[in-house]
C-alpha cells in the first residue's frame, strides 16, 4: 500500500516541513455508508500522508468521496476501517467527546457551505468556540487578542464588528479561514473553498490560503473539483470513486 501512497511523491516544493512528523496520515481508510444492498463505498482503502506545512489539493469529480475523506481526517466522521493520525494523535478510536475536543484544539475546517454563525460578528465568530469551551481570565484575554491579530492579518480589522450578512463572499471566506486558524492547528481542511466565489475572488482566496499556510507552516488539504486551483498546492492527489491516485505535481495546469 505504501508504494502507492501519494505522499511518496517527490513533488514537494517550498513549504517548510516541520520536524514533528506528518500533519496527517491516513492508512487504509475505508468508509461505507449504509449496509447490505444499499451500501455505498465512499472511500476505499485510502492512504495519504501530508507532511507538516504541506499543501495538498484533493481533486476529484462530484460524488467521488472528497468530503467524506476530509470529514474523516477532521474527526467529524468515523472511518469504517483504517487508521487516522492527525499531528501525531491517532483519532481512529476516539469517542465522540474526544473527537469534539480534537476538533476544537487540533484541526481547522473550512466547510463548503455554512461557515459562520449568522448572529455573531466576524470577531465573535472567531471567539465563539473558545467562549463556549469556557475561556475565562487570561485565556479569554489572549483569545481576544489573537482574534484581533488574525483579523488584522486577514485584512479584516475594519470588519471585526460586522455580522456575516454585512460581509462580501470573499470577506466571509476570509473570516472562515481566520476561524479555522484560530486554534493554531497543524492541519487545516478546506472543502471546496472557492466553489461559491467568482473566479477572481476565488483566486484571491486561494492566494490568501496559500500565504497563510506558508507563513505559519500549517499543512492543508484543499478539496476542489476545479483544476485551475490546484497550482496553489504543493501536490495534487486525485480521487475517483473513493480511490486515491497520484496527480501531477503542483497542479494540472502546467
Amino acid at each position, binding site marked *: 500500500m505504501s508504494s502507492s501512497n501519494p505522499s511518496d511523491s517527490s513533488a514537494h516544493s517550498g513549504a517548510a516541513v516541520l520536524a514533528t512528523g506528518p500533519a496527517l496520515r491516513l492508512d487504509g481508510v475505508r468508509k461505507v455508508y449504509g449496509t447490505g444492498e444499499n451500501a455505498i463505498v465512499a472511500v476505499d482503502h485510502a492512504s495519504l500522508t501530508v507532511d507538516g506545512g504541506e499543501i495538498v489539493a484533493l481533486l476529484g469529480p462530484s460524488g467521488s468521496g472528497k468530503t467524506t475523506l476530509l470529514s474523516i481526517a477532521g474527526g*467529524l*466522521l468515523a472511518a469504517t476501517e483504517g487508521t487516522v493520525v492527525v499531528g501525531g494523535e491517532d483519532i481512529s478510536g476516539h469517542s465522540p467527546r474526544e473527537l469534539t475536543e480534537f476538533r476544537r484544539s487540533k484541526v481547522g*475546517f473550512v466547510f463548503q*457551505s*455554512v461557515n459562520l*454563525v449568522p*448572529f455573531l460578528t466576524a470577531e*465573535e465568530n472567531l471567539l465563539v468556540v473558545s467562549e*463556549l469551551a469556557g475561556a475565562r481570565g487570561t485565556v479569554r484575554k489572549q483569545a481576544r487578542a489573537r482574534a484581533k491579530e488574525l483579523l488584522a492579518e486577514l485584512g479584516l480589522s475594519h470588519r471585526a464588528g460586522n*455580522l456575516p450578512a454585512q460581509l462580501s463572499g470573499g470577506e466571509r471566506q476570509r473570516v472562515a479561514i481566520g476561524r479555522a486558524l484560530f486554534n493554531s492547528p497543524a492541519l487545516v481542511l478546506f472543502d471546496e473553498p472557492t466553489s461559491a466565489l467568482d473566479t477572481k475572488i476565488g483566486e484571491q482566496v486561494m492566494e490568501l490560503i496559500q500565504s497563510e499556510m506558508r507563513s505559519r507552516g500549517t499543512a492543508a488539504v484543499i478539496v476542489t473539483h476545479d483544476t485551475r486551483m490546484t497550482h496553489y498546492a504543493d501536490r495534487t492527489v486525485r480521487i475517483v470513486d473513493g480511490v486515491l491516485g497520484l496527480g501531477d505535481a503542483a497542479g494540472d495546469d502546467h
Partner: protein
Amino acid sequence: MFLALSEMRRAKVRFGLLAGAVGLLVFLILFQQALLTGLVNQFIGALKNQSADVLVYNAQARKNLEGSIVLPDQATAIAAVEGVAVAAPLGEGTFTVLAGDEEQDAVIFGYELGGPGAPTTLIEGRLPEADGEAVASSRNAADGFDIGDTVTVVPNPGGTATTFTVVGLAEEINYSVAPTLFTDFAGYETARRAVNPDATQVLPSVIAVRVVDGADPTVVADAITAAVDGTEGLTRQQAVDESPGVASVRQSFSVILLLFYLVVPLVTGLFFLIVTFQKAGALTLLRAIGSPAGPLVRSLLIQVVAVVLSGAVLATGLFWLASLGGGGGLGITVEPMPVLATTLVVLVLALLTSLAAVRRVLRIDPIAATTGAGVQV
C-alpha cells in the same frame, strides 16, 4: 452566556415579542388570580375575617350559612364538647335596608359582643358596643355604609323598622357580594323580627366557637360533629373553602387559569423549538468546530430564563398599573408572593417545554456541517 446574549441582542424584536407575549399572559394569570381572590373575598370575606375558630352548622345545611339553623339543645351540647372554650350564637340573614337614601340588599351578621364571630379586620372606628351599632365593610362605605351613616332594615307589614348606626369599618367582611354589617346578636334578632313579626324565637344560623388555648380547631370541629347530632363543625378555613359558592367560583377560575398556565409554556416551548430549527445550521457548525453540546444547551436555557423573567417583570408592571385602577372595584393589590410563585411556576413549565428544543440540540450530528444541510431530524 456569550452565545445566548449575542443572539438575543441581534434578534431583539423576535425575543422582545416573545417576552411581551409571555408578559401579557403572566399578567392575565396574575390578574385572574387577584380577581379570584377578590371575588372569593366578596363571597365569604365575612367568614374568613371573623374571630371564631370553629363554626358549627346544621348538618342539613350543606355548609351553607343561609340554610343553617342551630337549635338551643344543640347549642348547649356544643358548649359542652371538649376543647370548646366559648360557644356563642352567630346569626346571618339578607335584608332589604335603606342606606344612603336607597333601598338595597344587605347581609347582617349578629354575634355576641366580646365573643367569637367578631370581625377581625377593623380599619377605622370601633366594634359595636351597644344595641343599634354596627361595623360595615369598608368596600361599601361610599354606598351609605360609612362611619356615622344609619342603615334601616325595611320592615314587612306588621314589623317595626330597626336602625343601625355604623361605628366602624372592616376590610373584606362581605358576604354573598352584598354590603355587610356586623352587629350584636340582639340587633340581628330585632332585624329578623322586623321582617318576620310573628317569629316566636330567633335562632342562630351557626354556633361560633372559640377553642381552648392550644387546642387544634380541626380536632374540636370533628369532635363537635361526632358528639352533637345533626351538626357539622367546620374550622374557619374549612367554612371558607367548602362554602358552596366559593367552590364553584374557584372551579370555573381554575379551568381558565390552568389554560393560561399551559399556554405560556407551550408558546415558549414552541418558540424555542422553531428558533432552534432555524439556527440548526449555526448549531451544527459550532458542534463541528468543537463546541460540546452542553454549552449550547445551557445557552438555550439561559434564553428561556431570560425571556420568562423579562415577561414576569413586564407582567408585574402591568399588574401594578391595573391595581392603580382598582381592578374594577375588586380591590386588586400587588403582593410579592403570588407574583413570585406564579413566575416560578411559569418558569419551571417553560423550562420543561423547552426540553423539546434541548433534545433537538442534543441530537445535532456535527457531520451535517459538511453537507450544509444542518437540519437532520
